[in-house]
């Protein structure tokens, strides 16, 4: 890349460098809700709350491990809320009908629902009304089925639901050998594999016209110099359009960037065992993390 980025813009990009993981990831509150009417009535309110809290915490851990472009929490409210609810597949049906029951995923902000999808069957129509057992057994069955929230279903969750959460609200236009945007985030911020697909939403200005538009982009990595003549660089995400933008805009005011298809780069963010999980009590046996 030969064309220098404007200094002010570069400054903004560098200033946004987080010192540690997770500092810049958008927060999403994740919660599990037992919603199927015939199931709700089988437990006391306290049991239901315990069940919902436990499954929510489990979901937080699973999603936090797999989708590292977002910061999931199951306690405090956040700007976005992901609800995984266990309900009838067809919610228009009556309570006692023979209906499949499964997991729905809904994303909401503070105002409204933004997206929803049906993820996974819990029980088919022929067994939906079978006994649920104790609350612990029921929780285990839910966790067992959610354990099938495999890599493909997580991809679906991003594609249909979580791709509505903006991961950046600015980007600097780059015009050089390649045209695209430089985001104020490094691939490591999101543990982002460079085969991920993002979506850039913005106002595209062409002459007197302004058009709100979205462009799908492929993520790449760019190294920006820390200062003039400095050998050190910092990494940033470079967003290249998947297809040429027509008509070519004079400029683009970026409003938001979304992750459409997330691929986790596990090599960029390896699982290191933190000191808190390490023991040396019986150090001679070659053990380590318990």
């Amino acid at each position, binding site marked *: 890349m030969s064309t220098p980025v404007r200094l002010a813009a570069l400054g903004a990009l560098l200033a946004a460098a987080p*010192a540690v993981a997770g500092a810049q990831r958008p927060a999403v509150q994740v919660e599990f809700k037992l919603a199927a009417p015939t199931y709700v009535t089988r437990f006391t309110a306290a049991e239901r709350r315990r069940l919902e809290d436990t499954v929510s915490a489990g979901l937080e851990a699973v999603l936090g491990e797999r989708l590292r472009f977002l910061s999931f929490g199951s306690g405090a409210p956040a700007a976005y809320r992901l609800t995984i609810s266990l309900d009838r597949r067809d919610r*228009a049906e009556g309570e006692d009908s023979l209906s499949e029951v499964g997991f729905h995923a809904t994303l909401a902000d503070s105002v409204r629902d933004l997206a929803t999808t*049906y993820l996974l069957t819990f029980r088919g129509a022929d067994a939906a009304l079978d006994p649920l*057992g104790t609350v612990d057994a029921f929780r285990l*069955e839910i966790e*067992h089925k959610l*354990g099938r929230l495999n890599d493909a279903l997580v*991809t679906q969750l991003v594609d249909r639901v979580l791709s509505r959460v903006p991961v950046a609200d600015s980007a600097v236009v780059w015009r050089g050998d390649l045209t695209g945007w430089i985001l104020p985030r490094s691939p490591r911020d999101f543990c982002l594999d460079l085969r991920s697909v993002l979506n850039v939403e913005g106002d595209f200005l062409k002459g007197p016209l302004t058009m709100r538009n979205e462009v799908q982009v492929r993520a790449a990595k760019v190294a920006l110099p820390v200062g003039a003549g400095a050998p050190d660089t910092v990494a940033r995400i470079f967003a290249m359009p998947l297809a040429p933008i027509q008509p070519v805009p004079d400029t683009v005011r970026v409003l938001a960037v979304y992750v459409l298809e997330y691929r986790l780069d*596990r090599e960029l963010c390896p699982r290191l065992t933190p000191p808190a999980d390490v023991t040396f009590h019986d*150090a001679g046996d070659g053990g380590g993390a318990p």
Partner: protein
Amino acid sequence: MSLRPYMLLAGALLAAGRVADAQTDAVESALARAAKLGEAGRWLEGRALLQRAMDSCPTGDPGRSCRLRLTYAVGYSYQLEAQWAQSGERAALLERAAASYQRVLHEVPGHRATTENLAAAYRDLGRDADVQRVLLRDPRDTLDAQAALFLGDSYRAQKRFDAAVAAYRRAALAAPDDPAPRDRLVELYRLMPPDSAFALFRRLEEEKDWEVSFPGAAIDAYELVVRRVAERDVKTASDACRRWLRLLAETGLFTADRLASLGKVWFAKDMDALQRYLGDPTQMPPGTPLLQDGDGELVGRIALALGREALARGDAERASAYWWGAYRSLGPEPVVALELAREVAMLDARYPKLDTTGRRFQRIQMELFEGKAAVYRRADLEAIQRYHTTLGLIYAQRRQWGSLGNPQSALFQLSHAVQTARRRERNERFFQPLPQVQARLARGLVATGDSTRARVTYVDAAMAYLDADDPEGATHMLRLAAALRGAPAASDAALRRLVVARERVAAPGGAPAGCDAAIERVDAASRRAGLNAGFLARQRFKLLADCVAAGPGGIAPQDGARVLNAVLRDSVPLVGAGDLLRLDRAKAALLRAVDLPGQAARFDFDRPRALAKEVPGAVILLVLSGETRPTFVSISADAVLGARVVEAIGKDAAAVRLEVGAGTVTVVHPLVTAAVDSAVSMKIRGVKGVTTVRVRSR
């Protein structure tokens, strides 16, 4: 004999314990504060704090663990900082991390977490030979999944592809539920010569867990195979493409972008047709060689998935268009036709405007009967049960109860579904309790005035509810049975006693004293009353597991072993999540007394039979509500032996620690006395499968 020396010794031990506790607290506190500082990017301060804490560690052996943990923490801090550092600083930070880890490993060669973090640091430094040197140094060859991944990465960087494949496969074996090894394998094949795609395809054909547990990785793999072989081997490309499409449909990833992603291959027209179908359910894809695939099963699966998505969005008409369109176009031959028919018929029953004339239902009904006759001719019990259940549900939803002699009725079909399930239990050992189906059947019999059969069916339903861990439901069924005409059977009273026992054991406050004796009494009474032996074995297991869990202080290891052995000895199927919980608790109790090597402590749930059998040891049937096929839990041979040994040594299990591996049992005593050694060793030697017994003090 004076007690004074013992009291002095006890006092000294207590004081030493307090010092050790205080030291541990100081280390934990330093680690926590350093972690907080790291989170805020204040790495230097964090490391200075760790260094100060290290200076406070006791000298010599007592402070060894303290120093090692803090040295490890310093290395970890450098390594994390390196992840967020500018390019010029990164290498220096990683070298410092490596130096700290090396210091730890000098003291504790082979320490697992340190070795792995050091390997990660070397990998990031591009020192691939060092990664291999560090990881392959351990002569015991006990690499876990993470270490195997690092090893594979280092081989990949050196373009030693075969070695990398072997390392990633090893990681996959060590962590059967982790998607990372499969992802790495696919990415590795991307770097390999194009011909390697054939090997990848064969791998997916042979290793069934790809599609079952890692469909995302399988989708990537099939896509890669299609791209690599599309112009060279039409058959392999077609096979891979069909699997790719089916997986996309089943996982909700069947999108226009993905269909277009293959580009200008020879079957681009098929992809275009599927894209049109995605937008418009009336545009059925043509029956080309790629899509037709014999009987159209693939297009049917795609239609089924797209319709389900539409219905979940609340669009019943679009769902109907996909399902009915596919069913009409493909006919009743493909296996998927049954599911399409069921969805259409049940949707029509809920939304009558979709089939105002009823002709659709007539056609579906007729063809389902033809299909059912065909599977009867093939004696395919699973398919037969599916047909009867489908027809039963369709009629039940239409409240068409009919009679046991009328095939066009819920009663006939549901009763045959239950009978077929019983035949499967006899032939395939696949037990299914079916409480919902049996309760509906009984209700239907009541509605049609057949109270004699209704009574028997309610009693069967009560047993099913007990199997499904719902004593309350069982009581309700028995009450409904009692309200009907006919003489109560001896089994009714035995069942009521069983319900009471189950409720009492499961009630808060714990099991009654003499729980074991109570189980024996209930068991004997039930036998006398002629209750089914398989049912009684299942109930005994549940009662025993609940009994030992109800006592104060958690489950004792020997009781956990008894529960596990009850399942293994009688081949008791696990029915419902309640049994999973029981097994899980029993295992946790057992592992309090037993150390098992490597992955032997894992109980792999939800494995198809072929995969479960790959693991030497025992395989237990697992039946979860709504599953049409059994899955299996595999338990390692070492865990099976551990359970036998712990049950054999009984209460002494609480005082020892056992290491069990490949027939050898090592008894680790906290206090070794000749008498205890001798007694325990004697008991263990008599256990089937034990080849060697060793005793060592801790």
